[in-house]
Each structure stands twice: as structure tokens, then as C-alpha cells.
């Protein structure tokens, strides 16, 4: 089943002096259960594409459907709400609130989603156990390694049972061991829990794990390889 369908997507940045045509007429679709890497040189448009898929940024032209909903038409509070219920995010850094423990970080977002307290606690434990941090639930981010922090971020992204998780260079700040570890956990979640992951990366080892690799350059899809 198709989760994302994008048609003739265009993004032009013209807020600065030079116009930047960051995305140029991309057509793509993503199926449920995908484990997809988006690669390409720096400045090719990976972040721009992911931001639009996540409803954080607005396309200049074209359409984005997520589970049949025309996201490009959503505005304001509706968009925020849609994002909250359908999309999980993992960013490169600063994912967690430093004054909250791992558990509180995950729980806080669930609270914002209006999940009742008794369900929150169970689910948080379950999620943190799934990412291998069952024994660190009461640690603050500063007491966790970068890789562990990213795993908490993954757990948080899954809190709302989203249709897919977007991760923009989630391993960029991690050493190779943590990178491998995080990827293993994402892969496991993908296989066992059928979580759809779409992530951008520069790292060849990460690319190898992906089952589909989309290469973009200058805002255009150069290749789209399914293994």
C-alpha cells in the first residue's frame, strides 16, 4: 500500500538574493514497510525533500499525498495535527529536551498527543526497551551517548504509531559503532514492527543496509534502486 505519493514536486527558495531551485520536478512514491535511503552530494536537496515529505516545508509546485491526504493543501493547526499523528521525526541533533529523562522525553510527546497517563507509561517502557534502552529510562540525555540519544529519539518518533519515520542524517554525529547499532535497531523495528523508515545519509555503510536507495542530484532523481 502506498503511504506517500509525490507528483511534480518543485521547490524554489527565493527569499535570499539568489534563487535556488532546490527540488526540480520530482515524482516518487513510497510503500508501507520500506527501508529507504536518500543519498546525494551536499546541497542536492535531501533535507529539502524530507522537510516537504514531513509537512515542515511547503512545496512551490506539485502535490504530496500521505495516505491519500493532500498534505500540500493542509494549513496551520491542521498541518501540525496531521504531522503529530502521522509522521515521526528524527533529526541530526538536539532531538531531546536536556532537562527531561529518556522516559520523560518520550512521555512528554505522548502527553502532547493526548494519550492518557496509564497508557503512556507502558508504551514508553515498551518503546525504550525496543530500542535497547530498557535499563536507561531514567537517565538524562547528558548521561547518554550520542547513539543512545538517537535511539531515544527513534523511540519518541514511534510514540504516536506514525505511518512512517523520517530521519535526516540520523547518524551524522555518531561514530561507526553507534551508527551500526542505531541502524540495526531501525532495521529490526522495520522488520518486526513493520515501521516504514525514510532516511537521508552520506554514509556508505548506512546506504548498504537500505533496501531501496534513491539518489538525487541538483534537485532531481538520478537513480532509484530497489534491492
Amino acid at each position, binding site marked *: 500500500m502506498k503511504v506517500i505519493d509525490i507528483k511534480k514536486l518543485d521547490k524554489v527558495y527565493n527569499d535570499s538574493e539568489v534563487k535556488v531551485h532546490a527540488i526540480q520536478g520530482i515524482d516518487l512514491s513510497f510503500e508501507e514497510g520500506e527501508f529507504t535511503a536518500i543519498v546525494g552530494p551536499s546541497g542536492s536537496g535531501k*533535507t529539502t525533500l524530507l*522537510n516537504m515529505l*514531513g509537512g*515542515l*516545508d511547503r512545496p512551490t509546485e506539485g502535490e504530496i499525498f500521505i495516505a491519500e491526504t493532500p498534505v500540500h493543501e493542509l494549513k496551520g493547526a491542521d498541518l*501540525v495535527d496531521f*504531522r*503529530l499523528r502521522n509522521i*515521526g*521525526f528524527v*533529526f541530526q*541533533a*538536539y*532531538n531531546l*529536551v*536536556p*532537562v*527531561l529523562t529518556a522516559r*520523560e522525553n518520550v*512521555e*512528554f*510527546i505522548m*502527553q*502532547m*498527543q493526548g494519550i492518557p497517563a496509564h497508557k503512556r507509561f507502558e508504551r514508553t517502557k515498551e518503546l525504550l526497551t525496543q530500542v535497547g534502552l530498557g535499563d536507561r529510562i531514567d537517565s538524562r540525555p547528558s548521561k547518554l551517548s550520542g547513539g543512545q540519544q538517537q535511539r531515544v529519539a527513534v523511540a*519518541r*518518533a514511534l510514540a*504516536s504509531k506514525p505511518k512512517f519515520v523520517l530521519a535526516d542524517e540520523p547518524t551524522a554525529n555518531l561514530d561507526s559503532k553507534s551508527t551500526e547499532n542505531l541502524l540495526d535497531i531501525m532495521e529490526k523495528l522495520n522488520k518486526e514492527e513493520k515501521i516504514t523508515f525514510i532516511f537521508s545519509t552520506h554514509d556508505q555503510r548506512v546506504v548498504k543496509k537500505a533496501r531501496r536507495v534513491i539518489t538525487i542530484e541538483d534537485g532531481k532523481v538520478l537513480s532509484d534502486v530497489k534491492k
Partner: protein
Amino acid sequence: MNLFKIAWRNLWRSKTRTALTVSVVFFVVILSVAMSSQQYGMYDNMINNAVEFSGHIQIQDTNYIKNKSINDALHLTHALFEDVKSVKHVEMVAPRIESFSLASYGNKTKGVVVMGIDPETEKSISKLDRKIARYKLRIDSLDIDTAIYNRLVELDKQSFVSAEVFDERLEAALGKSHYSRELAGFVINSSEIDSHYLERGEKGAVLGEALADYLEIGLGDTLVMISQGYRGATAAALFPVKGFIKMPLVQLERGIVFLDITATQYFFSADTLATSLLVKVDKNSNVNAVSRNLNKMLPAKLQSQTWEELQPEMVQMIESDKAGGVFMKGIFYMIVGFIIFGTIMMMLTERRKEFGVLIAVGLKRWTLAKILLIETLFISMIGTLLGFLLSYPIVNTLHNNPIPLQGQMAQVMEEYGFEPIIFFSNNSDIFYTQAIIIFIVSIVVFLFPLMRLRKLNVIQAIRD
């Protein structure tokens, strides 16, 4: 997760900054509490003195109000008395006849205010009976150190209204180490003078102590008074000195003679006349209403005026002094406002990325704003509370122990017509006002950061 808990933890992310901001609020609160307390203490004292000496309300002939001449005195009738007394909330009515005279003893003469009073009713209005100097320290009568004597004189002239006050002053002047109950008892006993308050119908004079000093007149000596009486009658009489009285204002004390009202009427050939009727009202808050009711009821040629109407200069002085205080405190609050503003802006700036990520994952901006607002209020309210904790005991102690000024400072104050004592108010309004102002300042300076947060570009914030 409760937002207060998050906000509280956030405060300790930069301990030093939080501590600094809190201490700025703390110091400003202490400063403005101290300032307000001193100001309101002074106003309260001025008003109390004025009300005590002149009553809440005075009824006078409209011409007397204009001319202040004994020729415009009003007729004291039993009916008038009863009518005034029958007005609701009126507690006490006291007649006074007031005019001027020359007072003379030996080769000294001075123009004085002659205040003819009913000694009994005045007890509960002006409490003059409690202001009689009963003790007077004389260096020749005592075998004490001149240094101690001088210190005593500096502390509180030389005379005291009661043995308790005298004892207190002795203790202050001698210091704990030299003070002994025995010595104090001896000094106090040997300083007692035969100074009395007036009795009804008595033909005697009670003089302001400073006036007596000037005239060099003693108790039992005879004061010569010469004046013009009612409608130009000649007024001349001799009055034995019965007592000395202490007034809060030295200027008043230097030129006032109290006589019994009957004796005064006789002296001025003004039988059954009074220049004013003082009215004491049960509560301050009823004064205006009582005065209005009196004016409705009184004959047209009589008018009732409240202490505020009787002392417009004082009311004006208080108002303009208040305005000055508001200006000073305004500057303090502006400083607090800027500091809090800077702190919030820093909190916002350094957490831009964090906020961007949180908004992206679904936190509402409003929730973030609430956390930031709670942090701001924590800072300002902790500062305010700490300020109260320190300033309340201080202000309270000062309220109970006003600071008497000495030397030149005291003289300057007296020349300007103030009691040379710094009073402090411990009215809870002072504290409420501070808390409310700091609260409002915090909210106002929060508006700009709030707008910044509203406009925060999520993508930009995450990218930076």
C-alpha cells in the same frame, strides 16, 4: 510531565544567570519596599499628627475660614452641639477658641497662638494630656557625667512625657553596659517636675516646651498675655504656668499656649463663642461621608471641612512626593524589566534548535511559550519572595522603632516643618504593590520574546 516541573528544571540549566537575574529582582524589591515604606511611614505620620491635632473634621463659620479672625467665631449652643453629635459615626465633638496674643515673661516677649480647649474632650481627640512633659533633666540637679548628659540631650531634648520613655532614652544614651536600673531610677525620680495638664475651668497656662525655654519661664511663674479680644475689646491677663507640653512639630511648640476654653473666652471677651468645633469620627473611611452629612445639616454660615480640606498643602506635598517616588521606582522597575527581558531572550536564543525540533515533532508553540513564561515568572517571583523575606522583618522593626534624627539633620527637618524622625510603614499594600508590579513587568517584557517564538521558523531553527 508537568510544565512547571520542566520550567523549574530549565532554570537550573544556567544557574549563574538565573541566580543573577533573581538577585537583581531581589535587590530592586528590597530597595523599593524600603523606599515605599519610608515614604508611606512619613505620610502616615504627617496625617496622624494632623488628624490628631486638628481632628478629622472642623466646623467653622464661613467667614472664619476666610479671615481666621476671632470676630468671625461661631456661637456655641447646646442645640448645635447635640445636632453635630447626633450625626452617624460622630464619636466626639470638641470646641476650640483660637486666636493670637503676645506672651511675655521677664524681658522676653513672643507672639503666640492661644488655643482655648475643653481639657476633657481633648483627651480623646488630640490626647494633649499625654504630651505633657513630666520629667526634665537638669544638669545642675544631677551628679552625672556631662558626656552622658549631652548624649541624652542630643537624643531627645531634655524632657520626657513618661518615665517609660525616659528610661528607654537613658538606656539608649548610656548603652547596655553603663545602664543600671538603679541609676536610671535615681535620674528619673530626681527629674520629675510638677508639670500638669489643664483642668476644666482652671485659670492656668500650658506652654509649648520650646516656648517656655525661649521665655525662660518656669512652672508656677506668671505669664503675661496681651491681645485684642472679640470685636476690638482689650485683652490682658496673667496666667500661672501649669505645665509644659511637647508637640511633634517644634515650630508649633515654639509658639503655642493652651488655656481652658472658659478662661480663653473670658480673656478675649468672647463668652459662648468658639472658632471651631472639632469632630472625631469612628473610622477614617467615614470622614468624607460625615462631613457631607454635616454640611447638609448645618446652617448656611457654618461649614464642615475634613482634614484634607483643612490642610491642602500637606495633601499636595504628599501627592507630589508620591509622584517623585513613582519616578524613582519606575527607573528601578525599568532596570528589572531589561534584565528579565535579556534573560528571556537568552533563554529563547540558546534553545532555538531545541524549540525548532520540538515544534517539528508536534509540540505547540503555545506550550513552549507557557514553559518559557513559567520560567520567567519563577525567576521574578522567587526574587520578589526572597526580597520580601528579607525586607519584611527589617521594615517591621523600623516601623516599631522609628529612627530619630540628630544634630543638623534634625534641625533641617524641623525647619521644614517635619518631625525629625524617620518613620516606616509596614502596610501590606506596599508588598502587594511590589509583587503586582514585578508580575506585570515580567508579563510585559515577555511579549516580545513571545512574538519571536510565534514567528520562529522551524526549518531555519533546525538547520542553524
